[in-house]
């Protein structure tokens, strides 16, 4: 649906380009989680895709007409207009008419739960309600690609589930989405693909479903000392483990090995204070990839 070819951008008088040779293809119905530390180039990339800036070199090719829905991080609406007046204004600007207008309105109101607040002035809404209105205005526009920037900040967990469900619904209906968020578990839940930017380059572009399917890991921690026989028991099971005085980390362990080890630990005089067992999360993956850089 959208292809970025060798896309580069340099701000005037900047020593380094903000983006260099970005090649990216976005398919219909694809949701991409865009990650990167501050200054990595996310803003520049979103600005180029939304045509707010023109690339220094390279090109953006649309298969089909260009149509983008924006949900910026800022609360981009009029606080002295009511919820309904804001939605009507943007519906007019999106040139929505007739049945399509009504369908879009009903759909976003249901997703955001703003129906009872239609008459309220936007400025009087709570922080979370304002976020929902900001989201509603962006997705009211029928578009092929939605750029969603931190849409769930400050939204309570129930409303957040509604928003995420609506984004999944958009994705499932064939819309493409580029999603940035501080909440990596949200990205993990809705994005099948992650693009990690680092200093203007794509550091990795991977399918989360396969990339996060790594072996199970186990972390055990005792309040004081490890059981004395634990090192020998792990060795007997053929596990490669890293030991400290009170903890052990095993990077790869099967379910059968875990069960055996679990029974062994349960028979010891002192039980561990912490047990973490499972696949690595996106957050762990992100921290590994970026080395914890901000």
């Amino acid at each position, binding site marked *: 649906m959208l292809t970025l070819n060798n896309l580069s951008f340099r701000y005037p008088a900047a020593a380094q380009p903000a983006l260099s040779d970005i090649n990216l293809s976005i398919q219909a119905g694809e949701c991409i989680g865009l990650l990167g530390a*501050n200054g990595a180039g*996310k*803003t520049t990339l*979103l*600005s180029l895709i*939304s*045509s*707010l*800036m023109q690339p220094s070199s390279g090109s953006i090719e649309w298969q089909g007409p260009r149509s*983008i829905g*924006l949900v*910026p*991080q*800022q*609360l*981009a*609406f*009029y606080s*002295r*207009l009511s919820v309904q*007046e804001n939605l009507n*204004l*943007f519906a*007019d*600007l*999106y*040139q929505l008419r007739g049945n399509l207008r009504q369908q879009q309105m009903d759909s976003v109101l249901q997703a955001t739960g703003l129906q009872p607040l239609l008459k309220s002035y936007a400025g009087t809404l709570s922080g979370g309600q304002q976020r929902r209105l900001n989201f509603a*205005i*962006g997705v009211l526009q029928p578009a092929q690609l939605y750029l969603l*920037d*931190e849409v769930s900040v400050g939204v309570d967990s129930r409303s957040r589930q509604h928003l995420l469900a609506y984004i999944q619904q958009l994705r499932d209906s064939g819309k493409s989405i580029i999603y*940035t*968020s*501080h909440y990596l578990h949200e990205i993990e839940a809705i994005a099948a693909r992650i693009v990690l930017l680092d200093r203007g380059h794509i550091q990795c572009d991977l399918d989360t479903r396969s990339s996060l399917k790594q072996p199970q890991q186990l972390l055990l921690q005792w309040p004081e000392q490890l059981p004395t026989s634990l090192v020998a028991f792990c060795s007997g099971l053929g596990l490669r483990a890293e030991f400290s005085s009170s903890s052990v980390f095993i990077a790869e362990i099967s379910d059968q090995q875990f069960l055996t080890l679990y029974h062994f630990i349960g028979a010891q005089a002192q039980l561990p204070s912490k047990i973490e067992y499972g696949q690595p999360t996106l957050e762990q993956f992100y921290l590994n990839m970026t080395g914890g850089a901000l």
Partner: protein
Amino acid sequence: MRLWALIAKEIRLLRRDWHAIAVLFLMPATFLILMAFAMSGLNREQLPPLAINLQVADSSADSAFFISALQAQLSDSKLQHASDNQQPSIRIDKNFSTHLLDTPHIGPSLSFPAATDHLSRQRIHSAVTIALAQTRLRAFLMDSQLLDEQIPIDEQLFLVQARTQSELPQYDVLSSGNLAAKANASQLSVPAWLIFGMFFVMLPMANSFQHEQQSGTLLRFRGLQLNVATLALSKLLPYIAINFVQFVALLALGVFALPALGLPALQIGDHLSAYFVLALCIAMASCSLGLLIAALAKNTEQALLLSAGSNIILAAIGGVMVPKSIMPIAMQQLAELSPMSWALDAFLTLLVGQGSTVDILPWCLRLLAFAVLCGTSGLLLFRRRVQQTLWTTHN
């Protein structure tokens, strides 16, 4: 449809902005009334009535005629047979009739309490001089048998007045630019504060643009690829309309409310199309300047400072706060740099000089040139500011 939606939004927002309503309507209306009162002594067309004591020692028909002629000169004043020494007095001597046709003639004697102002003394002196001349002319006509003594005094007075009438055609030279010196309080105050209020649209215009830029709504507009002309027109057109509403409302205040408060009524005259042309030119100038200020300011504090500051400076040098007619020459020359001064001159041409569209054309052309200059530079800067509105993200 998009432009109309943006215009409707702007008007809706303005209607709910009580601060803007106060700045655009309440403040100029208050200043207008206060300053009209403050200048109420200037060039009043109707002078206040006087109370004058008459001490008449002569009971002839001549002195009766003189009193009638004097009352005709001071039609709204009260001539009373009393000896109150707090009022100006006119004393008619018992030999008034005997020596009426003597030359030189010593007429009635006048006495004024020390507190009587110069203008009142002049008015009484002039009225007595004219009444005396008419009484002497009557006596001459009687002696010459050109006037019948038997007809009533008011008819005699009419005939005498007819013999002393003369046509003195009077023309105002509109290009002299000194109409402010002839304007009364309402003619000075209404246009001055009306223009001041109209130029204050800069403030809500600049604030509205700042809000859109800072909130991200401008980012949405850019994402929709709304062109700069649509965005600029969506600001200009509603505020031009607001300017027209201000123009009509504040003029109506001058025409209807000021006389109810005892101030001179504003006489609009017949050239309504000239007022429309003038309102349009002022609106173009103020809104173009508003666009420029909106594009220049980088935050709401700057918007407030630039719009209010420039408005007050333009008003101060342009003769809004102090009439140009009482400014020193150097300040009057400086005033010529202010578009408010041009608008004020055009207004006075209509209100005081009863001019037409052709008469105000030089000032209208200046206002339009100012509008083109500010509008063009404002549009270029506005375009740049819109293009500088980028996506911001904090993660």
